[in-house]
């Protein structure tokens, strides 16, 4: 009691500090991002294991070196015109997208700012990077996690796609070009 009275000031101050630290380190990183679930429950695992698909089968380079990214619906429809399994998810997917021929509004984990120029061709064909080096174990994942979108800037908050420093470090280590317009446009 008297002790509290004596150090009332300091205690309150420290309490403030504690609250701030908790909010800043625990709450902020969570609140900062909005979690957007994927429209379709897709399992890379099943497709690689059961269907024996390889990354390049769906995610490929075009002839002009541009990255095709996530395949369009017809790629899925190729096999999923009719249900292949018995899962409810698949049925919902077919009824929701394949039958009405609606493109799937995938949430991109790695959405880059408009002014960023990233060449998959250079990183795959020249630097020989593995997909996982940037995309982690996405290829083996059984379910697609939600995409994290920064509430203010609207950018991807994926753990695998850190900010510019990460790119720069790697480029520095490998002695790759590091000028602004090497990666910006």
């Amino acid at each position: 009691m008297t002790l509290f009275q004596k150090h009332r000031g300091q205690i309150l101050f420290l309490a403030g500090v504690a609250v701030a630290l908790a909010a800043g380190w625990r709450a902020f990183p969570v609140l900062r991002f909005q979690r957007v679930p994927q429209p379709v429950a897709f399992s890379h695992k099943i497709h690689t294991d059961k269907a024996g698909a390889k990354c390049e089968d769906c995610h490929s380079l075009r002839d002009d070196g541009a990255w095709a990214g996530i395949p369009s619906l017809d790629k899925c429809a190729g096999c999923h015109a009719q249900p292949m399994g018995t899962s409810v998810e698949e049925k919902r997917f077919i009824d929701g997208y394949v039958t009405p021929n609606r493109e799937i509004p995938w949430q991109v984990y790695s959405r880059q700012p408009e002014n960023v120029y990233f060449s998959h061709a250079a990183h795959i064909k020249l630097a020989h990077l593995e997909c996982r080096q940037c995309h982690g174990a996405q290829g083996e994942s059984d379910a697609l996690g939600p995409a994290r979108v920064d509430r203010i800037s609207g950018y991807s908050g994926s753990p695998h796609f850190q900010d510019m420093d990460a790119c720069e470090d790697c480029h520095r280590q490998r002695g790759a070009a590091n000028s602004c317009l090497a990666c910006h446009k």
Partner: protein
Amino acid sequence: MGFTRRDLLTFTGGTTAGLLFTPVPWGLLRDTAVLSENWPGIPQPLHGEIRTRYTTCTLCPAGCGVRARCDGDQPVGLAGVPGHPASRGVLCPAGLVGHHLAFCRDRATEPLAHGKPVAIESAAAAVSAAIAACGAREAVAILDPRPGRAASLVYRRFLAELPKGVHCAPPDSQPNGPFGIDLENTRAILSFGAPVLDGWLSPGRVLANRSHFQLIQVEPAYSRTASLADLWVPVLPGSEDEFATAVVRALQGETTDAHAMDVARTLLRNKPAIAVGGGPAVARLNAVLGSIGRPGGFLPRRDFTPVTDIASVPDGSIRVLLIEETAGGDPLPWDLLRRKLVPQDPVLVALTPWLDGCAQHADYVIPAPMYLESLDEAPTPAGSTVAGFSLSPALLTAPPKLAAPAGFVLRLAHDSATYPDILKRRVAAIKKGGRGAVFTYPDAKSTRVSDIADLWKSMLGGALWLDDPLPAGTARGADLQVCAGPPGPALPPNREYPLVLIAASAPPPHGSPLMSKLYRESGLRRPANAATVHPKTGRDQGLADGDRAIVTSRAATFPVQVVFDPAVMPGVIEMAGQAVSPASIRRA
């Protein structure tokens, strides 16, 4: 004791201090910075697959090949087709951004009857009725901006069915009549006001040959061409024909006019030489130069069908006038057209993509597809020595309610065929004729027509058919008279109009908003309202450089911005797109 204000302050102090050691401030700073990088409301490009597609430019008669870089199906950049025989892989500034036209304001997007939206059927019915209601002596006319197309044929057929149908074209729409210009072999060009270096024929073809011809520009205006020509002969406005005659006499060794002698000498030194532009005397001049039917001169081609010049149609004779306007063409002077119509309730039908041209006066507006919005055609490229034809496949999806002019006329004729059918027939005819070769854009190769299995398909992929040349010596000098315009009026200045108004090159009537780079965002080209005068002339009229002023001619008065240029002929006013006429200028 309770929680005092001071406690609150201490606590807040603590939190503030604490926050500095968390990611909050830096995280927020970074986010705001990133936010400022893609500022809200800034349009973002599409990101589809990049494809290349080919078509042919129909904005002007040059018929340049177009290579379109498309993002998905949307063209995002236009460029020339390398090796294209008519355009040599080059586009003009307007052509480079032709894919923007579809997004311009003042577009006609639905059929209008007396300003009110109507269904295309009812518009057609009304027009048919008007045609049926024509009196015996009253004509039905179609104004065809680009004769020689398959569409023109549709018009002719339709008009032939009518008791009094006139297929007419704007003045000077068939320069050099049946002749092409053998630019590749000519060594001197004596140009009477033709904008040789500023949009004449096709820029690519002219500039590719620029290094091997002498250019003499006879023109009162200090035009682009005049300023760049090897010799500029600034004759008085309207005296071009006089000078041509003088040159003829000089060539025959009869005159002593120093300028004419000088010019004649240059022409004789650089043969073959040709004279272009201007009036009858210029035709004579070409005869004397022997430039007709000879290499390096005017060579005749097959496909020519003369069309009535609208100016030569008797005044007050047309009851129903259908005017086709192209996406890039200049609108005709309205007073000229009005004179041709019958005084009592004439019917004017505008087949046009624009609302701001003749559509303003039209009873019926039939919205035509914009450039690149529908399958179109390009006839023989301007100045080509052989007949030619190419398709202009669509790259953009057109709004629903548009109707191609030829398609509308087919509808009037109750012909079941569509415009594409007509184009198909034209291509089939070419195939049947078996003459000439086809230059295909994607591979830049020329193939004999006879060796092509599916001509229609390869034409749709972007191609230019060129006829075989006519055997030499099949041309008569007299034919060139066809194309010679009337001589300009000689203009003695008088008290009321002390100056002479002459044409300076005008901005295109419609164009991509990016054309502002040339006309407003840089001094490269003078805007439409610039009146350029010699400083002395200006000062005599009590003007200063940059003044706002009023130019008055017999025809009209215009508000202008005065520009002083010591290069301009004293006593004249140079203004965008004006006919030669006496004029005065005073400070506004």
